[in-house]
């Protein structure tokens, strides 16, 4: 047992094990010689040998466990990593900031009970203009410089065509938002893109159910949900051919908080939305009787508020796909805040 002291190494332990417990080990030999022992003494000697065997085995087991533990600890030290080195670098994707912002906006409208409809980009004159109460030659058409394409079609200048497309197919009650791309003949520059994102929304129900007060309520709620609960909202009268009364909706300038700065042209307000009660001529164009139904509609561009939100001053970042820009966004739909 002295050889099985605490400091014994693995080789010493194994030597003892073989010498004592092995096939021709000392204890094995003793057991083998048992038949030469008188029968009366056999139980006593047998018990003794077994007891010794158990003790030696237990001792060896304890030592081996200690030795294994020690070896494990040694190996841990040898397999240390520099945990500050970078992890496995697989490509990391990002969602485009306009998508994130658009998704967040749509989610707010969905929470308010609006459904999403997707409509076409290539339109005819009727759905982009005439049904929206832009008669041919009307100066209001000048507000939007239009791209014309083959087949006598045009690229929609606003997502308001969605209003017509959906109302033509269905009857109120309707609460719909139509996101999508629109196109206007503006040069690609710091301030404008020839293709940009808009959300059109509308709510129509039987006469008297949906009022201008509801328009104010829904849009104020949306703007506060998107820009923050303290957002100040202002409605101004305006003109759009397809709504009456029409309104433009401003929020307090995000940069100067209403004091006045170059971004808000010193007014303290930023124009965000156009809106109004759907014009009777629009209802007529989709076959609704204006006395039967009424509702509101609104529309706004996504890129402009996105610039304000991100504090960036160049529209082109949204179509250049510069990874040094895109990689700054979280990889979550609707993560931009």
């Amino acid at each position, binding site marked *: 047992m002295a050889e099985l002291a605490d400091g014994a190494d693995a080789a010493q332990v194994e030597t003892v094990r073989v010498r004592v417990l092995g096939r021709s080990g000392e204890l094995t030999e003793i057991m083998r010689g048992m038949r030469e022992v008188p029968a009366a003494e056999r139980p006593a000697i047998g018990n003794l040998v077994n007891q010794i065997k158990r003790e030696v085995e237990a001792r060896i087991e304890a030592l081996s466990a200690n030795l294994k533990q020690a070896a494990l600890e040694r190996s841990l030290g040898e397999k240390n990593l520099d945990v500050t080195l970078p992890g496995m670098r697989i490509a990391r994707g990002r*969602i485009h900031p306009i998508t994130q912002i658009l998704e967040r906006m749509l989610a707010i409208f969905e929470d308010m009970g609006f459904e999403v409809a997707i409509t076409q980009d290539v339109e005819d004159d009727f759905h982009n203009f005439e049904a929206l109460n832009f008669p041919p*030659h009307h100066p209001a058409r000048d507000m939007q410089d239009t791209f014309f394409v083959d087949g006598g079609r045009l690229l929609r200048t606003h997502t308001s065509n969605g209003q017509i497309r959906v109302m033509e197919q269905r009857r109120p009650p309707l609460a719909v938002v139509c996101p999508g*791309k629109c196109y206007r003949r503006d040069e690609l520059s710091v301030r404008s893109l020839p293709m940009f994102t808009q959300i059109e929304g509308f709510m129509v129900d039987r006469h008297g159910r949906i009022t201008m007060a509801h328009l*104010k309520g829904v849009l104020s709620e949306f703007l506060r949900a998107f820009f923050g609960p303290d957002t100040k909202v202002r409605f101004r*009268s305006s*003109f759009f051919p397809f709504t009456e009364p*029409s309104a433009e909706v401003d929020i307090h300038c995000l940069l100067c908080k209403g004091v006045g700065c170059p971004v808000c042209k010193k007014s303290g307000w930023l124009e965000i939305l156009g809106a109004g009660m759907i014009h009777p001529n629009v209802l007529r164009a989709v076959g609704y009787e204006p006395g039967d139904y009424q509702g509101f509609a609104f529309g706004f561009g996504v890129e402009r508020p996105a610039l304000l939100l991100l504090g960036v001053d160049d529209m082109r970042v949204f179509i250049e796909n510069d990874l040094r820009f895109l990689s700054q966004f979280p990889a979550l739909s609707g993560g931009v805040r």
Partner: protein
Amino acid sequence: MKLPLSWLNEFVTVDADADEIARRLSCAGLVIETVGRLAPQFSGVVAASVLHVEKHPNADRLRLCDVDAGARGKFKIVCGAPNVAAGMRAPLALIGAKLGKEPPLAAATIRGIQSEGMLCSGRELGLSDDHSGIIALGADAKPGDDVAEYLHLNDTVLDVEITANRGDCLSIVGLAREVAALFDAKLRMPKPEHARKPKPGDAIQFDVKIEAPDLCPRYAALAMTGITVGPSPVWMRRRLELCGMQALNNVVDATNYVMLETGQPLHAFDWAKIAGGKIVVRRAGKSREFVTLDNVKRTLDSEDLMIADQEKELGIAGVMGGLNSEVGESTSAILLESAYFEPIGIARTARRTQIRSEASYRFERGIDREGQVNAILRVAELIRETAGGRDASAVSDLEPRKAQARKIVLDLGAMESLLGVSIPAATAKRRLIAIGAQVSAAGKNGFSVSPPPFRPDLNESADLIEEVARLSGLEDIPATLPPRVAALAPRHPEREFIRGSREVMLGCGLTEAATLAFTAPADNARYCGAGQKPKPVRVNNPLSAELSELRVSLMAGLIGSLRFNLNREAASVHLFEIGKTFAMDGDLPAEAIRIAAVSYGTYALSAIGEPGVKAGFFQMKGIVETYLDAIGAGGRTAFKPIEAADAPFLHPGRSAIVTIDGEAAGYVGELHPGEAMRLDLAETCAVFELDLKNLIAYGFAPRKTIEAPPKFPAIRRDLALVLDRNFPADMVVKTIRECGTGLLEHVDVFDVYEGKAVAGGKKSIALACRYRSKDRTLTDEEVNRVHAALVEEARTRLGAELRD
């Protein structure tokens, strides 16, 4: 429209500063873009009457003037201006006056004579570059008056954005009416003096004939004679300039001035150039050329409305006059025109000829239907005053077609149900009267309203409700939430699908890109998609040749973005886009939704010191497979070698057509080395593009039935077959599946070997077969038997050798 507040103040007085006026107008729908505060660049300059002028005793070019500056006193001034004359009114800088950045004016002795001030030119006062003489002030400049005030130099000018429905606000009077309505103030509208009976010898006989009453329902004309054409008085020029118009001469300026004031465009013809004393308002009748007064030759359409005389056209009605009848220095008699032209005709002509004049701008938006006579009297009044003109006729006022009377019933209940708030009847009535409407009671709860003739935009009850709401800046209306929609809106399948697709791409490490739908014809031809020959949709009025078609594929845009990033330090680029593509379907453009990606450089660097993965065919195919699996379409997909001719931009041996249910849906592969060279790419670029139409139609959720996990263990057996190098692996798998019994659960390729151990032109393909029974645990012996039979069958069918 520029609104100088000094001009506004002639018609309305309100107790509010410029900012408050701007705010109220903005909230009522007339947005003020800027508030410009103008200040003179001088002080201490007063109007003076020149009493007496004599030559300077010691200088030929100088004169001595006695001037009277009213309460400021009389002064002796030395003056070098050639135009100084007794009787004129001129600006006098008093001793101590500040002119621009100069030190205060001191008394100076000029050639021995002291000058007690200075008579000033335009340049000296910082008003213009004119230094040819001193400024002649109008006769209304009282000696001693402050010149800065007299010239309205202390003005504030609001820049008002006028929406297309508010033609009436393209005038000072129209804006004054708005301001009066917004501030509950009174509008002052001076009535112009009636035309005077011509003196004997002054009378001019003329005849007006309207041959197109559909386009010109009213035409007023007035002849004047005794005109001396010259510069307009300073105050008039100043106002024209403040409103963005150039001063020309006292006749043209007077017509422009009245147009700005009243919104009625006017035109003056040189009477001497009108043949036969006849004005005919008619269509051009046939296509012809005509030179407008800007000296540009225009081609007329037969439908264009013209003002003509007996022989020739004199002007394009409501758009621009002709060079042939322009008022010039020699003009002594004029014929004034004040007409109403229908907006639609003017809009058509203006758009077609690309002329956007101040006149056409106003006619297009609809002017006062009844303002013609007042405006012509007003301009006559001014010409008498500023050009010495005398009336040579009475006003000829032809109105072959009367305006239709408009009566609109405004129901206050309907107003409440549209706005969501009750506005008191008295308030509504007051606001409607303020905008010029005539209002009388109709029924118990409504009004009968006749809109004023200058508001063609008011035609139905909704228009009037807007007016009532507008004049409080919509502040009457509370913000309340509508009752929540009871039925939940259905989810939009396409949007859900796109959102899911985007998230799979994100998980695959790709970054979402957004590119323009416009592209160059060359790129459309180059990246037209494997095996497809779409006809691109052309843009008729593109921004540039490079953006003259709609994209048939997302690839050009993504490759453009790849190039953009490589030019800006990027070493690896992994982008995807989901967007619309366009192609002609017969005669009409059609839209498709696609997903595409581009991958370049290191895709997975792995950890430091371990081998990385670069963009390449299998990397991109893996992404496509991951995507199709994720959307539940994995089992319906196959990849087929591409035909070189089908996709010249792809590597013919390292690209595949992706089929879904046997139908081509897109491609995956590496860019052709030639294309990579053209794009100056140093490394392999892998791409894919899929049309999502069929996938969206199929739906997002997996359709196969879901099974419980197996209860009994599987047994694996491998085999390796030696085949021709080009034999496709998916055929091997397919054959083995066909040869297998019901116990064969799955077959997978796990290795492909080419090299010394197999013959040249051959490859060894190693497959793992998984056997399992649904109702018992299989024995080794049973599997060995089944597998041996399968190997033999497959080997025979494929003509392959077995490899140990």
